[in-house]
């Protein structure tokens, strides 16, 4: 199973393209450089379902566009699949550039819960243009699950 949560549109696409995306994500964590360009059918939506279906989350970067080379704070809105806000959760942040085989240039953290399912994410930074993946691992009452967002700068 791909660690990227597919949209219904993506689910209808070929198995090959899903395998490419999955391999790209694997490369992120193995340090291999496999690709010269980003897959064309990536889902960049800022609201995603978690890999196992336990959560729905929305990333809210500061401003309309995500700046390159500057530290920024995000808000992560987290709710159950049924739409109940999740305030008490352990969330870790990971990510990187699958094409380049490197991780994030910083080690961002969720530093506090803001209420109503919102969580403050500090230390976000993207030092290059292109396709990035940001992954949140969530552990809360419904269980452990992961959310993966594609980000394009």
């Amino acid at each position, binding site marked *: 199973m791909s660690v990227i949560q597919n949209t219904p549109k993506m689910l209808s696409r070929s198995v090959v393209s899903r395998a490419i995306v999955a391999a790209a994500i694997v490369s992120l964590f193995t340090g291999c450089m496999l690709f010269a360009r980003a897959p064309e059918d990536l889902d960049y939506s800022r609201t995603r379902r978690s890999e196992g279906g336990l959560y729905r989350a929305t990333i809210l970067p500061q401003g309309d566009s995500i700046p390159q080379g500057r530290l920024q704070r995000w808000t992560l809105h987290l709710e159950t699949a049924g739409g109940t806000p999740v305030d008490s959760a352990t969330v870790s942040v990971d990510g990187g550039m699958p094409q*380049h*085989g490197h991780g994030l240039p*910083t080690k961002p953290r969720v530093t506090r819960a803001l209420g109503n399912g919102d969580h403050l994410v*500090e*230390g976000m930074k993207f*030092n*290059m*243009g292109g396709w990035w993946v940001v992954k949140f691992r969530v552990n809360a009452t419904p269980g452990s699950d992961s959310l993966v967002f594609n980000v394009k700068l």
Partner: protein
Amino acid sequence: MARFVSLGLVAATVISAAAAPALKLVGPRWSAAQRETLRSLSLGSLGSLAADPSNRYADDTSAARLGQELFFDTRLSGNGKVSCATCHMPARDFQDGTPLAHGVGTTNRRTMPIAGTAHSPWMFWDGRADSQWAQALGPLESALEHGGDRTQYAHIIAAHYRDEYEAVFGRLPMLRGTPAHAGPVADSARAAAWRRMPASGQDDISRVYANIGKAIAAFERRIGYTPSRFDRYVEAELAGRAHTPTDAFSPEEEAGLRLFIGKANCSTCHNGALFTDNHFHNTGVPASTLVAAVDSGRAVGARQVVASEFSCTSRYSDAKPEDCDELRFAVTEGDELLRAYKTPSLRGVAERAPYMHAGQLATLADVVTHYDRATAAPFGHSELKPLHLSDAERRQIEAFLRTLSSPLAAPAGFLGPPNATGQ
């Protein structure tokens, strides 16, 4: 993204550019995405310099004047012959043109230039300092660079700069009874003398020492770049103006720029108006034949900056913890840090041979060839992969890099020693 333009398109455009005259009206030579990349690389995109919350004197002109005097003062050394300017030569873009820096001894690294570094969150090739003032303090008590020590420097301030110092930083501490030479340095006698000092005395001296760094930083902070021919070229392109001889590119230079932001992937890391992402990368640079010690780059630098006595979160910093997010959220471990070095700015790069963190590559042509071949790293993993450039393409990139040279920018009198400028 520009670098994802198909090779066929790149090749066709390069051929087209090569056939074009040097001076001509702007045509559809650059796509909208490419124009945005060009804009992002031009000096006009740099923006104003942000305040340094860790140095409340950073924008104090009196501190900058004191820092300028200290920068050129050879008394701030173990042998009376070494100043910051010994390696950071103003006439050479504040570097020394040699593979390894020579102070009282020879270091393991290439001297880095100073211009524009106030915009960077990390100093040194390995980012082991997180501000200009913290950077300045490293060489001063390095046994291979200035070779001096903290109490020596405090005595020099008291003897020669008391008025200027106290006008900026307030009263100097009483130095009666303070050893002439003491500090947390490699020399065992001076280190022992430092350990014998009371903690309050050590703190007083360290605060003077930190202020020396802050004054030097206030000086360095004012040194930047003037627009290069590249910047003028981009300005004309974006404005749709016909090029003049002062802002025109030759077909070879234009082709090199196209490669730089396209097929050759240079602008992936060399991005922004200073041509650096201010981050650390293992690009497979060969080990120096002049350095015997193993150099792990950022893997060591990251640990050092976190533990630094003069970091943004240290007691000598003027910043609040929340002002130190680069440090708070720094990556401090992992294989990616192994033999990773800071992406250097490419402004003025043609004037700064030799290249890489220990001057391993003698010429710009060698550098372009290194990135083309993407040889394996001595250890750790190189992020590069071969580019398969032709000889002509390598020459084009080199030609483009030569368009990035320009004189330095600074307030009047700040590009040399104070005596030479009448200050």
